[in-house]
Structure formats: C-alpha cells, structure tokens
C-alpha cells in the first residue's frame, strides 16, 4: 500500500465524485419516465472490488445505501467468478433488492483487464410497469407473485452485447414496454459512463494510488462518523407509531423503534413491531437498513459526500418474518412503511435531543396516481404526484413547507400544466393551507390542499399510510392535523380514504389536504411579531393567533 498525502487523496476522491455525478446526468437526461427525472426515484453508487461504497450521487434519500445491500446479494447469486467485462446484471427480487419489484437494480463489474476486476457500478431506478396484477401501482397484493416479473440477478448485457431474449421477456411482460426498455438503456448508458471514468482514473493514477485514496477517504469518514456519534447525547429511546392499514385487512399496523447510542455505536432495534402482515407494506431488510442509514446520516454527517465509512457505527436489529424484515413470499409493493419508519426513528431520537432535531415533517408522503386513457388521444397514462408536506419546527426556526418529505428531498412535483396536459384531469386548486402547520414557539411548515376534477373515466390511486394519527411535535409544540384524502367532497358519496384504488367518472372530484409539520416549543412563547406576520401572510388565522398563540390582532 502506498502512503498518500491529503492533496492526492482529495484529487482522487474528487474524480470519483465527478464520475458518480456524470452517471446521474446521463441517467436523468435519457430516462423515459418522470418518476426517475422528477421524483428522482433512483440510486447511483460506485464500489471498490470488495463492494465497499466509494462514491454516490444525489438521488432519493431513502435509497441511501440500498444499492450496497442489493449488489452483494446480486454478486453472490450470479457468482463473482462468472462476471466478464461488459456484463450488466438486473436484479429486482425484493428480498435481495432492498426495495419493491419495480425498482430495477442494474450493476456492472469494472475490469482493468480480463480477470482483473477493480470495482462495481450500480444504478437502480423505478420502472413504470413489469406486469404486476394492476396497472400503475399495487396497493393490495398478498404475495410476491402478484407484483410482477422477477429477476434474481440476470444478465441484460453479456460481454457488452444486449441479451435479446431478456429484453423481449421484459417487453412482453410490461404494459408500458417502450418506457421500461428506454429506462433500461438509460441505466446502461449511465453504467458505461461510469465505467469509462473509472478506467480513466486508474489509467491516470495507477491502481495503488487509487486504492490508497479510497482507504484514506473511508478512514476519514469512519473517524468523522465516530466523532459525530460521540458528540450525540448517549442513551436509549423508544417510539411507537401506526400505519393506517396494510392495504388488505384494514387493521392498523404497529411499528416500534428503539434507538440506543452508547459505546460508539448507534443501534436501531425494531423489536415490538408487528409480525409480517398480509398486505404489501412489509419492508425487505435492505430497505429497512437504508431507512436507518438516512436517519443516521442526517444526525451525524449530513453534509459529507457518502462512502462506506460513514456507516461504521450503525447497527440494525430486526427479526426475520416481521414487518421490517420481509421474507418470501411476503408482499412488499407499497414501500410507504419506510417513509413512516424514518419519522419513527427520528421520533425516538428526538426524545433524547429535542433541541437538535425538527419535529415531524408531515408524517408521511401523501401520494396519488392518475391512471386512464387520455380523453383526446386515447393513449394510456399513469401520472403520479407525491405531494409536499410541512416540515417540523426546530429549536431555532420554523419548518419549511409545503416541501417534499425528508425521504425525497430532491424530488420535484409535477407542474399543473404538465399534469393536466398528460391526463386531461383538471387541477382546481393548489394552495397552502391556513393553520396547517403545528403551532409552536417555532411552528411547523404548512401543508397544502389540492383539488382535482376528473373530466373522463379513469382510476385514482391514493397512497398514504398515516391519516388516522397526527404527526408528532416537540418540546410542547402542537401536533398538526394528519393528511386527509377526501373523495367526492360535498356529495352524498363523500368519504375519507388513505390507500385506495377508486374508479372515477367525469365530474368527480377529490381533495388532498397534506399535513403540516409538528410545532416546536410552547406556542405562547412565540414572538408576537412572528404571529402577526403569519396572520398577514395567511399561514395562521386570526382565531388561532388569539386562541393558540395568545396574540390579539
């Protein structure tokens, strides 16, 4: 091993980060579905030969490290010794893939020369359709085999050439084959970009320098994470929360997380959570670990580019066969459990460090999807939107909002003009909700209200798992109202739903009201000037100013 100075190590690290960023640019520019380029529902990582993460690009926070789990399982299945230059392997078996079956993980080995494997590249991205039982999204499957075509680790390119039979298998098993194969090509283009960069890096610096630089970066990250853990309050805290239902039985689903920070370790234990449930809300282990990583990263080293070293202190404890460790053939399609679990871990942590963390950020991602045939062209569409919520107040400032939930901070909402043009559905309102942020010395950010009117027959899928209990607050702040989805408002058919697939006819309407953030601190301690400003801007009503904040206007 060569000795490296800090300048050279940083030079190599910059090149690796730039390579991941180039892969990201290639993917988002060529992808054929908005879930990739708008929701950023992808994860891109670069590994060394030992499958340690050396660089990743920005994407969906909840995919942090999901690739790390998947690629190990994928390489084990395929057999490292069978890999050849130019191979690209597809994996979407949920229990290995740290996600549901529509997240397609593609990985590729990088060879300096034949037989000389120096690293791996991995690009996961959400595909629009792989032949699951329902179009768009699956809300009520009861086992894996209702969730689409499964690839356990299958070459889609072999030695640089497309494996035609596999591409055709995908084509004949998808309701939207052009988009899916387009995305496959986009992922392969991103892998090829990364491969070229990695090879150039090795050519320029030589193997020993690159590998030494990786060791330096991982060691620095380990040290940084260890110091951050030591600076956190030490102790153990638990929180319990409930999913509205599992999509099948209608019963609430119990989730419990206990976070323990002691002796340089940060442990998340899911004991006390529900056993596996019939509906598709079970989380594969890799997905549970990825969720824990996001919470851990956010409280330890949020601003450092990620590598394997950052997670050295993290431990995750969970029993197989439970909600947080799905095993075959448990249904896993509706991965919203991970979103609510991120907040659950945060809620446990917040008990130990209320001044360091924000209160709840809406509790969940309120999502909906419109599925139907366009009234002008008859073309089938499936357009989704994950709605912004309010973020929690902190000990120092109000929460932002409406903004996308913590588990997808980089996602972008679909413009009204795009949504209307693609679906023919009319948006009648998209506005911040008064009094939606939890009151506090620093209040939660506001949620929003969206009204939809259907002008043609179709289906509305709503996906939200936390409408029955309010998001949590901190340090005496107030809880905001939970998200509400109201079908057919102001009609005799009016009803509230959380996760549902509903047939709609022309003239039907739906209202989504997303939760604000939790409040932080006693509302009566809020500066009167801030309350007046909020009233002038319509974030707080006069009545709430008087009754909750004690400010007369």
């Amino acid at each position, binding site marked *: 091993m060569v000795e490296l*100075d*800090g*300048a*050279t190590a*940083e*030079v190599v690290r910059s*090149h690796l*980060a*730039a390579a991941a*960023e*180039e892969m990201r640019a290639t993917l*988002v*520019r*060529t*992808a*054929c*579905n908005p879930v990739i380029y708008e929701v950023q529902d992808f994860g891109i990582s670069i590994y060394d030969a030992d499958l340690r993460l050396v660089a990743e690009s920005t994407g969906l926070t909840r995919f942090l490290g999901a690739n790390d789990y998947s690629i190990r399982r994928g390489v084990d299945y395929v057999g490292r010794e069978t890999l050849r230059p130019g191979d690209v392997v597809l994996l979407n078996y949920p229990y290995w893939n740290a996600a549901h079956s529509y997240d397609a993980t593609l990985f590729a080995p990088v060879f300096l020369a034949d037989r000389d494997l120096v690293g791996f590249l991995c690009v996961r991205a959400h595909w629009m359709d792989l032949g699951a039982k329902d179009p768009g999204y699956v809300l009520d499957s009861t086992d894996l085999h209702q969730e689409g075509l499964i690839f356990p680790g299958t070459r889609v390119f072999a030695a640089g050439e497309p494996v035609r039979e596999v591409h055709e298998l995908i084509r004949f098993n998808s309701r939207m084959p*052009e988009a899916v*194969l*387009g995305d496959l*090509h*986009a992922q*392969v*283009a991103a892998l090829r970009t990364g491969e070229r960069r990695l090879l150039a890096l090795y050519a320029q610096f030589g193997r020993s320098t690159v590998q030494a630089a990786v060791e*330096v970066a991982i060691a620095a990250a380990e040290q940084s994470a260890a110091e951050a853990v030591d600076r956190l309050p030490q102790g153990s805290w638990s929180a319990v929360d409930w999913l509205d239902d599992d999509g099948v039985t209608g019963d609430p689903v119990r989730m419990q997380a206990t976070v323990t920070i002691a002796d340089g370790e940060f442990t998340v234990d899911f004991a006390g959570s529900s056993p596996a449930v019939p509906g598709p809300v079970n989380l594969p282990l890799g997905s549970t670990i990825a969720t824990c990583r*996001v919470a851990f990263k*956010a409280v330890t080293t*949020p*601003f450092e580019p990620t590598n394997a070293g950052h997670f050295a202190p993290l431990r995750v404890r969970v029993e197989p066969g439970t909600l947080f460790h799905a095993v075959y053939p448990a249904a896993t399609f509706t991965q919203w459990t991970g979103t609510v679990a991120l907040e659950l871990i*945060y809620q446990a942590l917040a008990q130990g460090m209320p001044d360091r*963390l*924000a209160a709840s*950020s809406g509790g969940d991602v309120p999502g909906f999807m419109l599925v139907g045939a366009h009234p*002008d062209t008859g073309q089938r569409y499936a357009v989704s939107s994950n709605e912004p919520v309010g*973020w929690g107040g*902190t000990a120092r*400032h109000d929460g*932002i909002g*409406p*903004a*996308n939930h*913590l588990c997808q*901070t*980089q*996602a*972008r*909402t679909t*413009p009204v*003009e*795009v949504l209307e*043009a693609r679906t023919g559905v*009319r948006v009648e*309102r*998209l*506005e*911040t909700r008064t009094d939606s942020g939890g009151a506090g010395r620093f209040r939660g950010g506001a949620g929003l209200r969206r*009204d939809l009117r259907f002008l043609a027959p179709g289906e509305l899928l709503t996906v939200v798992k936390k409408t029955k209990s309010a998001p949590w607050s901190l340090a005496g702040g107030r809880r905001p109202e939970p998200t509400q989805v109201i079908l057919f408002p102001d009609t005799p058919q009016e009803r509230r739903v959380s996760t549902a697939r509903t047939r709609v006819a022309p003239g039907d309407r739906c209202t989504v009201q997303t939760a604000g953030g939790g409040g932080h601190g006693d509302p009566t301690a809020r500066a009167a000037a801030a309350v007046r400003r909020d009233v*002038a801007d*319509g*974030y707080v009503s006069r009545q709430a100013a008087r009754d909750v904040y004690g400010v007369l206007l």
Partner: protein
Amino acid sequence: MPDRPIRLAVDIGGTFVDAMELDARTQRVRFRKAPTTPAAPADGVLAAVAALGTDLSEVELFIHGTTLGLNAVLERRGATTGIITNAGFRDIFLIGRGNVPPEHMYDFQYERPASLVLRRHTAGVRGRLDYKGRVVEELDPDSVREAARLLVDEHGVRSIAVCFLHSFLDPSHERAAAELIRAAHPQVSVSLSTDIVREYREYERTSTTVLDAYIRPTFERYVDALAAGLAGGGFAGQFLIMRSGGGSMTADAARTSPTHTVLSGPAGGIVGAGYLAEVLGRDNLLTFDIGGTSLDTCVIEQGTAAAAYEAQLEHFPLLIPAYDIRTIGAGGGSIAWLDRGLLKVGPHSAGADPGPVCYGRGGTRPTVTDASVVLGYLDPERFLAGQMGLHAEAAAKALDEQVAQPLGLGVVAAAAGVYDVLLARTVGAVRQITVERGHDPRQFSLLAYGGAGPLLAALLAREMGIQEVVVPFAPAGFSAWGMLSADIVDDFSRTVLAELSAAAVGDLADRFREVEAEAAASLAAQGVPEQRAVLERQLELRYLGQEHSMVVTVGQDLAAEPIRRSFEELHRARYGHAMDNQLQVLNLRVRAIGRTDRPELVRHPAGDGDPARALLTHREAYDFGARAVVRFAVYDRAKLAPGDRFTGPALVDEGTATTVVPGGVAVDVDGYGQLLIRERR
C-alpha cells in the same frame, strides 16, 4: 471614414469597471479600470470612460455589460413585488417544485433563504384556460381590479408579475389583466409571463416573471441615469446592453426585459471566444476564465457557444437562453484549508477585501494566489505592473502553518497540492461539459483568460490531454474586448408538445413563420437594417416520455425523417444509444441576429524569431512536469513578436496576468500576438 469612429465596451465587475476602447480608424484598442461604485453604479461606468479620456461625441457604439439585475436579486434590493395569478394558485411561486438544494439533501433542518415575494403580496383572480388554451372561465375584470387594489393600495406593491396557467398557449388573459392593472395603477410596473417566454411549466414561468418584475424598476432607473450621463458627455450613438444568452440588445429593449441581462457577467468573454475561434479556425474551443472567486468554462463548437434554455439564479429557475457555463466556486482568492486531513480549496474566498495574505491587507488564510506566489509564478515586485507589492513571506508562512505542516509536507509541495486539488475539480467540470455534448476533451483547444486563467491553463491541458492552449493578448481584459464583437440578438420560442410526424410538420412550418415575423419585427425595432438580419430555426426534441431535450437546427424545408435522423445521431453521440421510440417536439425556437461589424484582429509584423529580446530575467519556480523547483525564463509579453518560439519552463509576464509554461511545453507567438502553447513534439 465615419464621423463617429469609436466603439466603447464597459463591463462592471464586483470590484472593478473595465473599459475598452476600439478606434475603427486604426483598429487599436485601449483598456482602463475604475473602481465599482455600488451605491450609484452609473458613476463608476462614467468614471471608467473618463479614465480612457474618450470623446463621447465620437462614439458610434456603447456596449455595456452589467450585473445590476443580478446584484439586486442577490442583495434583495429589488422592488416590492406582487404576483397575480389564477384563483386557487397564489402559492405557485412560493411552493416551487417542493425540492431543496442538492447540497442539503440530508439536512432535515433546512431553512429557505428569504423569498422575493411575501405571501400577502400574492393574489388569485377568476379566469382559467385549459391545457389546450381553451377558455374554461372568462377572465373576471372585477377580480383583477380588486387584486391589484389589494396589492398596490393596501400592501404598497410597486411591481406586479402576472402569470396564468396555460397562458403560453394564449396570452390574451394576461394582456387583458395587464391593461386593467395599468389603467388603475399607472405608476406600477407590470411584467407578463408571456412577454418574456412562451413556454410551459407554470412555476418556472412565474419565477422568470417575478425576477423580471423584481429588478425592472431598479434597472430602468439605472439605464436612464447612464443614458443621461452619456448624453451629457455628447454621446449620440447606439447604446447596447449584453444579454445572458448571447449578443446584445438595445438599452430600450433591455429596459422592458431586464431578465435577459441577469446572467450576462461571463457573456463578453464567451462572445469574444466565439469570434476568436472563427478567426483562428478552431472548431472546438473550451473557454477557461478564472477570476478572483470563480472559474467559468464553456464549450464553443464551430464558433458557437453551447447554449441552455433554462438557467438558475440562486434556487430560482429562469426560462431564458443563457450560455451553458459550468462554474466552480474557486478562483485566485479561494481559501485552501484542511478538512480531516484532506486538502480543500474554496468555496470560501478571501474576496477583494481582505484578499489573499500576500496582498498585505489583513488576509490571514492562504489562497490560490498565495500558492502562486510560493510556487514562484507571481513576481512580488512586478504584480499588477508593480502597482502593488506582494508580501511573499507572509504568504509562505500562512501556507506553511495552515496547510503544509499539518499535512507533513514542505511549503512548496503544499502550494503544488493547492494547484492539484483545484485542477482536479476543474477537470471534472470540463469533462462534464464536453462529454455531455458527446465530445472528447482532447479534441479541444483551451482559451485561457481572466486574471488567473493563464496561470493554470497549461497544467489543465496536460492533465486532460488537451493539445493546445491559446492565451490572447491582455487576458485580464478579454471579456470587455469580447463585448466589442457582440451582435444584436433576440430569442423567441413556443412550446409545441406534439409528436414528430409528417402531419405535424406542416403545422410547425406555420408556427415558425408566425414566430419569425415577431423576430424580424424585434430586429427592425432595434434599428437593424434588413440586410444584416439573420433568422435561425431550431427544434427541441426528445423521445416521448423523456424530460431532457436536445436541440436540432433546421432549415426552411421541414421534413420529419431528416429531423429524426439528426436527433438520433446526436443521441447516439452523447449517450451511446438510439431507440425506436416516438419523438416529441418540445419547443420551437427562432433566434434573430443583427450582425455587427466585428473589430479586426490586428496582425503584427513578424520579428526575428528570437525571443531573447523579451527575456527579462530567470526565476526559481515550481515545475509540475519535474515536480521540483527549477529555473524558469521570464519573458516580457509586450516585447514578444510573431514568429517567436521558446520552450518551458518559462513565465510570460504582462503586468495584469502571468502565463505559466511548464517544462516540456513549447510556445509559439502567432501573427496576432497570441501565445499558442503545445506539448513539444
């Protein structure tokens, strides 16, 4: 000989105003600087002109580059701005797309910077179009009047941005609303989204309009003050202002669409680079512009700079054409520091005040400029033509204590490390902008300018395998020089969103003709004679389902198949694959160009080929080829003549800039006096 033979270009920067004079009779240029005057920016401009001593009555053309609009936004000094939009959608601007900046991806306590518009200054009015531009509900004049009354009379709003859903398909509701607002409140400035851009996506369009409304009153006052000041000095020529996305526009045009000026800071250099690329016959040129705080790079293909049709200012999207520039927050003033044993350069900068340690103005943290002094590249006695002595020992001490010792390196090795880290970041950015466009960076020449560009250019070229570096004369003033060759340009677009088919092409032709009529009218209104007017057509295309589009230039004859082939060729070149998927036309674009007379590059007579006449001295400096301190020859740029040839290690000093020529590299002085640096073969 014209009776007004002089052209003036004046560029406002963060610390200095650069003024460049061109005399058409002799083709000679002169260059002066004056301090920037933030409180009354027109004063600094007039002072720089006064420093040149130009008789304004002899000036035919005054071209101005200003970042006034940009600064108004960055410093939140614009007008109190309101938004009028559809009822139920008043929060479009404040919600945006819901995302947070990428560097805050895991920052769950993120706080947004202050917005440009308060929520109380937003109002919705009744009236609605659908996604085909059909009226769903007629615009209600009473609700417009009431919204305007609320914003202006109750909240003191001075400038109003109007943006309605789907207005890009039919601007009539916006225009009707504007008339109602202006009739009731003639003193209030009104900006319409469809006057600025006819493209889809309501948040991006609203944001563009808000920026316009926010800076317009300030900008108008500034242009009027400057025009009056120039007229007072006898100026009766044409007054042009630089645009963000290429070329210039008349001051009158700029008053009504100031948004087009906000990102024009680096534009002068890029216009100049495009011109130079043509004159020198370089098909592929990369610009490399390093100033005090940032490094800008842009691709120039066949004389045309890479363009983007969406830009960003802070986190606000702007649907305006802009050069596709990659910027790194690192320049001469960037601070070198240690983060857990890893050496970092920037993004913090010592700025102009206190500046690098070697300036001796109180700076204590070592910068890239300090590293340049330690490496022996900057002569403490001759820096800025001797006007400013450099404190070399203080620079070395700061670098030694804060970087070298903690890293266990010698001070020179640490300074070299600062260069290495800066270069590594640069390589990533340069590679991205070339590779994204399907090119190999090794096919490019590198044009180095800005105060620090020539210090690093040859090293960057070597790192990337670039064959040639071009250093123009007076690289520090290159941006102002570039402005002298700017055409008058205006851009027009329409969102189409139709599949590319034989049937759709006829409709496209009609829409091109409609937009071209508008484009021709704009040039005529800016005084461009017909024989100098050029209209260019482009289509933005993508595979159905993609978000990102690519631009294909098309001619008068439109046919689906050749257009598809051009797109596929581009897609394959950039991403390695093409598909059978349906193509979609996103936008059509027309660029209107009024050609100006460009300044001639003056050829100088060849010398005797022996650079010895220009040899000033020898100096010890660090050579990145040998990785050691060696003896460098130091040449005086002013005394070099065409035909001179010498090899590194050498330094070329010209007072406002120093060019570093590493060992193993050869320099040729071309007929225009430019340095062409190439690997010695």
